[in-house]
């Protein structure tokens, strides 16, 4: 039997499409603004030609560099040229390596991506179940344990934690390689460090959300229907408690995909974070610009995804 006339469903689809288009449009606007800012960064540090030429350069050298790199053109013209290039993946050449920026980045980004995705997965797998259990039994032993985990996670510097793990599991036990990025085993320790760093926030938010939702009237309704406790917990409570967690996890994933300079240097993972750090030191502006744009776009994309995920979780958001 078919429920709901077709017209009703069509209206729903149109509503959904309108929501999607609105969010996409917003994301595009944010991306454009970000591109403007990341381009302007080049000029914030002073005259890029002077910086590139070095301390011993003469007036003529600087002038030559200015013409060679096109800094003599009006800034809006440079921006449009850069942006058009960016659209086709052409970010120019690295000043330092003299190879295309896009090659450098596509070389390094997969490492960071793998690490980031593994890190957030680890964090969610650890934080969400712990947060849920802590909320079901507040002030119990497991709740205290979860609190302990999150306090330690927040207080411990990542570089120190990394070194401890390396000493125990790589050097003494020999279970995993010390550093590098050749095999999946290389990613185990960095994933734990990166994921653990994101765990406290997600866990506390899950716990707080669940505590609040479990007090809600509709949970009592679900119990009054005689549903089994697992269904009450996972179907009726967790979905509502997950909404703020999605937003936080997206931000933290964005942060991870931006690359962790500390973790990438300690574990000698040649990732995008390390590349950004080195490029800033080398005044390698095209690489810095491209990476900033890229990281920002990842953020914008993740925020969009979080919005869509939340709209799926909570129908009230879909009309907003």
């Amino acid at each position: 039997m078919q429920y709901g006339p077709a017209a009703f469903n069509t209206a729903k689809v149109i509503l959904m499409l309108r929501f999607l288009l609105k969010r996409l449009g917003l994301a595009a606007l944010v991306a454009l603004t970000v591109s403007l800012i990341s381009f302007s960064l080049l000029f914030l540090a002073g005259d890029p030609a002077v910086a590139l030429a070095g301390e011993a350069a003469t007036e003529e050298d600087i002038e030559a560099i200015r013409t060679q790199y096109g800094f003599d053109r009006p800034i809006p013209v440079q921006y449009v040229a850069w942006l058009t290039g960016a659209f086709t993946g052409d970010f120019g050449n690295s000043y330092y390596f003299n190879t295309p920026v896009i090659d450098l980045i596509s070389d390094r980004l997969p490492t960071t991506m793998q690490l980031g995705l593994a890190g957030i997965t680890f964090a969610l797998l650890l934080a969400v179940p712990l947060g849920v259990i802590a909320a079901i039994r507040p002030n119990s032993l497991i709740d205290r344990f979860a609190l302990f985990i999150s306090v330690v996670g927040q207080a411990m510097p990542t570089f120190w934690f990394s070194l401890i793990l390396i000493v125990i599991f790589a050097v003494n036990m020999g279970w995993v390689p010390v550093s590098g990025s050749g095999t999946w085993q290389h990613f185990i320790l960095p994933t734990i460090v990166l994921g653990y760093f994101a765990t406290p926030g997600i866990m506390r938010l899950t716990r707080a959300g669940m505590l609040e939702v479990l007090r809600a009237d509709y949970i009592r309704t679900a119990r009054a229907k005689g549903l089994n406790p697992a269904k009450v917990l996972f179907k009726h409570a967790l979905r509502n408690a997950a909404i703020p967690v999605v937003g936080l996890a997206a931000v933290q994933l964005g942060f991870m995909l931006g690359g962790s300079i500390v973790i990438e240097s300690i574990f000698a993972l040649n990732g995008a974070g390390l590349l950004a750090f080195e490029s800033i030191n080398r005044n390698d502006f095209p690489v810095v610009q491209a990476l900033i744009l890229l990281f920002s776009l990842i953020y914008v994309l993740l925020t969009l995804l979080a919005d869509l995920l939340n709209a799926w979780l909570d129908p009230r958001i879909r009309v907003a």
Partner: protein
Amino acid sequence: MEPLLSVKNLRVEIPVGTGMLKPVRGISFDLQKGETLCIVGESGCGKSLTSLALMGLLPKVARRSGDHLRFAGQDLLGLKERQMAKLRGQDMSMIFQEPMTSLNPAYTIGDQLTEGMIRHQRVSRAEARDRAAFLLEKVGITAAASRLTQYPHQLSGGLRQRVMIAMSLMCGPDLIIADEPTTALDVTIQAKILRMMKNLQAEFGMAMIFITHDLGVVARIADKIAVMYAGAFVETGTAQQIFDAPTHPYTKGLLSCIPVPGKTERGARLGAVPGVVPSLINGVEGCGFASRCPMRQAACGSEPDLTDRGAEHSCRCVHDTDTLRNMEWEAA
């Protein structure tokens, strides 16, 4: 005849910082199949906790005890949570006070209506949806089938309460406990919902426990009435007995608060029961109503029992029946 529900000496206790809160202090009643019992009392008298205790839905900190709580032949006091969950929604169901927050915002009406039936009766989704659509029509919702795909936020409070009522009927329970189902609704809808519930009861034949503070509501639907005060029943009887021959001073006080068409003069002051419910921490000393009662005397220092005042009529007061019946309510 064996009553559908027989409650004997039901108690609820909640440990609090300064002692033991005793919001339900030993209530007893029998309910026959198809009968409606109204439990009436002011806020804080323990009527909502009574209903939650019957359903086994009390908060974890609360403790339930009693002599027995027999429902359809089995004593619910001895049941484990899993066995209790099998009865809930299937044989006994509940309608709550707050329609705005009692439905889960994340799921469609159809999903929430059907999930209980799918669990209890192992029917297919389609069968459950047919039943849901049928019941939505029964509770007066138009275009019922298309409502199933809607979310709670797309419905008004009145509609949501109708959905809750339909939900309570899904498995064809023998008993429905309604905890102030019309309190949060505006008056025009209240009357409609009450009439509808009365009709549904006549059609499906379930017994009903109706919890309310509103005697106007009671007059419309009750077969039997229990007036609850400070965690205990102070007067029980048939609807006719309570309205025609109220005996306990508190019942009289409550009745003086509502206007009667043709009897209450225009512009006349309505009655009021002064004072507040006593603290229920560590129980109550003597008659709980004494401090608010115009007829109090020295004997009120010890709590009287619920005694017979005629067939099916009982009252918890030290005074004899004639004195009580002749008393005119005047606030102390």
